[in-house]
């Protein structure tokens, strides 16, 4: 389609240049320029954009997990892999307090099975604890309902006690998990159709 448009435009320009139809020619040239610059100016390829700092990690995981489900990926859920029957892995980014955090989250039939932090630049004494097992274990809950961050004490099953002094980072982790819960639901729905 693009080639056809350019060809027609160029043909017209040449033809009208020869005939001396100035304004008409000018408009065609302008339109052609707009089209080309607007479409391709900042994006030389048509591939979807990804945070470049995480691309090596994505590629590494692509090599590790063969079955990828791009139909379920989006701007935050960068990779969806089928790990086994009823078990899926997600590479998810979420904004913490200081930085974008990259998680790898494994979701089983009805529970969060595993959470890893692959990249973060949170402050050491605050959100930096997001990589600690004692915090990540708190996210290993049922996928029956979305998780919620609380402080100091949990009263319900779907609650996650925040890292002391790092509520925002904790919320980022919970958001990432909740995205995976949604995606898992989408996959289940797709399987039943």
């Amino acid at each position, binding site marked *: 389609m693009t080639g056809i*448009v350019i060809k*027609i*435009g160029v043909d*017209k320009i040449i033809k009208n240049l020869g005939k001396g139809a100035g304004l*008409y020619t000018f*408009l*065609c040239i*302008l*339109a*052609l320029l*707009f*089209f*080309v*610059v*607007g*479409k391709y*100016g*900042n*994006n030389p390829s048509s591939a979807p*954009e990804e*945070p470049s700092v995480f691309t090596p990690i994505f590629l590494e995981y692509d090599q590790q997990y063969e079955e990828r489900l791009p139909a379920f990926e989006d701007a935050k859920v960068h990779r969806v892999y089928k790990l086994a029957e009823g078990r899926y892995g997600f590479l998810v980014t979420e904004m913490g307090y200081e930085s974008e955090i990259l998680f790898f989250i494994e979701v089983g039939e009805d529970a969060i099975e595993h959470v890893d932090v692959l990249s973060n630049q949170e402050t050491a004494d*605050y959100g930096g*604890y997001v990589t*600690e097992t*004692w*915090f990540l274990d708190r996210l290993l809950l049922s996928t029956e309902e979305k998780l919620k961050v609380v*402080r*100091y*004490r*949990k009263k319900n099953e779907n609650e996650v*006690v925040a*890292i*002391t*002094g*790092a509520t925002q980072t904790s919320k980022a982790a919970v958001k990432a998990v909740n995205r995976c819960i949604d995606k898992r639901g989408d996959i289940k729905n797709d399987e039943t159709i």
Partner: protein
Amino acid sequence: MTKQFRRILVLLMTCAMLMTGCQSADSQTAKTAETTSAPAAAEQTTEGVSLHYEGSLKFTGMAEPFEVAYDDIYAMPFVETSVHSVSSSGEEADNTVKGVLLETILAEHGMSQKDFSTIRLIAGDGYAIDVTADLLNNKDIVLAYEFDGAALEEKEMPLRAAIDDVRSMYYVSNLVEIAAISEGVEAMESVPARMVMLETAYASGIETEPFTYYESEDKSVLMSDLVDAYVSEGKGNPAFKANDGFEKSEDYDVVYNGYLKITGEDAPLFTGKDLPKGMNVKSVMTLGVGDTTFISVGSALAYGQMNGTVGDVEGIKLIDALTAAGIEGDLFKFSDNTGYEVEITKEELASGILRLSDDGTAAAKFDESMPKKYNVKHLLTIEAVAGEATMEAADVSETTDTANVSTEGTDGDAAVELPEWTVTFDGLSDGSFDLTSEKAARKLTLISLHTEHTKNDEKKPNDWEGYRVLEMLEFLHVEDFSALVITAGDGYEVELPKDQIDEDTILAVIKNGEPVKADNLVQLVQNTEFSTTWVKGVVKITVK
């Protein structure tokens, strides 16, 4: 295709290309805006170029509150100075800051920072710190917009406080408000009259709640419960002292709505549900609220500056503890958590310490020259009282090998000096418990029992004084039992089923006005016809 038609077609395609190109350009611009971090409403510059930040710094609590636009602050005469700070972990930092003195801004409104006893620096996220008179009178407070030649980071904008040679907690970023707590007049505060031992308070009816602190599952109490239970009057600005020397005052409402984490790392630790972590106070040693000072004996011991010993028992000197709590007086009433009270003079305090008992509660311990009744277990409060001592200390002229416990006769007779004894209660839900004569004298009621038992066909009347076994069981929180095994020192045992234990079953210590015999000390006595169950020399009672 006619010429006209071709021209129309080309025009339509031209419009389509224009729209497509513009849409792509818009989406690129939007994506660029999302992925790059634009400075927030401020043009970060260095010297020579003007700063800009939307909004104004609020000054509240004054007689006439006012606001100053940040841009106006940036345009004011500035200072550039070196400052030194220390973090809570001991890390030191030296910076060169550039900004406007608080004094400069206040002067424009006819005020000085020395007019205030306390000002509160408040950040946009709610973090706040009180700057008290000792700093206000002696230090410059710089509202800085540059640190070490560089503009503040976005999160620190528009201003960051800087004071030389103080803790870094005063370096409040994202400064949005400066609140005067009082204006030229000393805030009305209650003089502390009471010291509450936190460790005993926790064990005395204050509800504890689970509290997750990093990876640890600890316990906490609500500050409101402590304040409501023990503070009689006054609010003021609660004052914290931690055992590393850290001191700060805090807003009353912040304290009242906060928590005290009482177990685990950094305990006692003050925090609040939505309080920034920087406002937490770790290892609280004392907390003054109104007319009450709460003290953590454990934290004070860790402080190490008030330690003392009585014999081989370590604790904190009573005199020093009361001084730290700001409690003055000539006479003090010591109260435990059962209502027991004893008055002790200021002079006598010098012989005593505060210590932690095995059960974690606080206790007073005095040296042997002092009456034993001063050694209050489960010590809850020490209160300054007016007047002279109403209870005279018992006369102790010599130290004897076996310390005596005085027991007043129930009919008002002169006290009978009794030898010390211990009966071990076994089979309790939490193990065993040694009930001593001293404990019994303080915690239990000495009752009289008249018996007339039959021996060798003769009626033998006796008047006993002792402690009800059922009251002992109640004191030990024995809710139910099926039988008691009474064991004597020589191994002799009697098992009494529950239905044989009644209000007249006592451990007697006095018989006909005299202590029970030296080799007996404690005798189980019942108001029964025969004395077959009257075990002499009881040393143990096993609860079944």
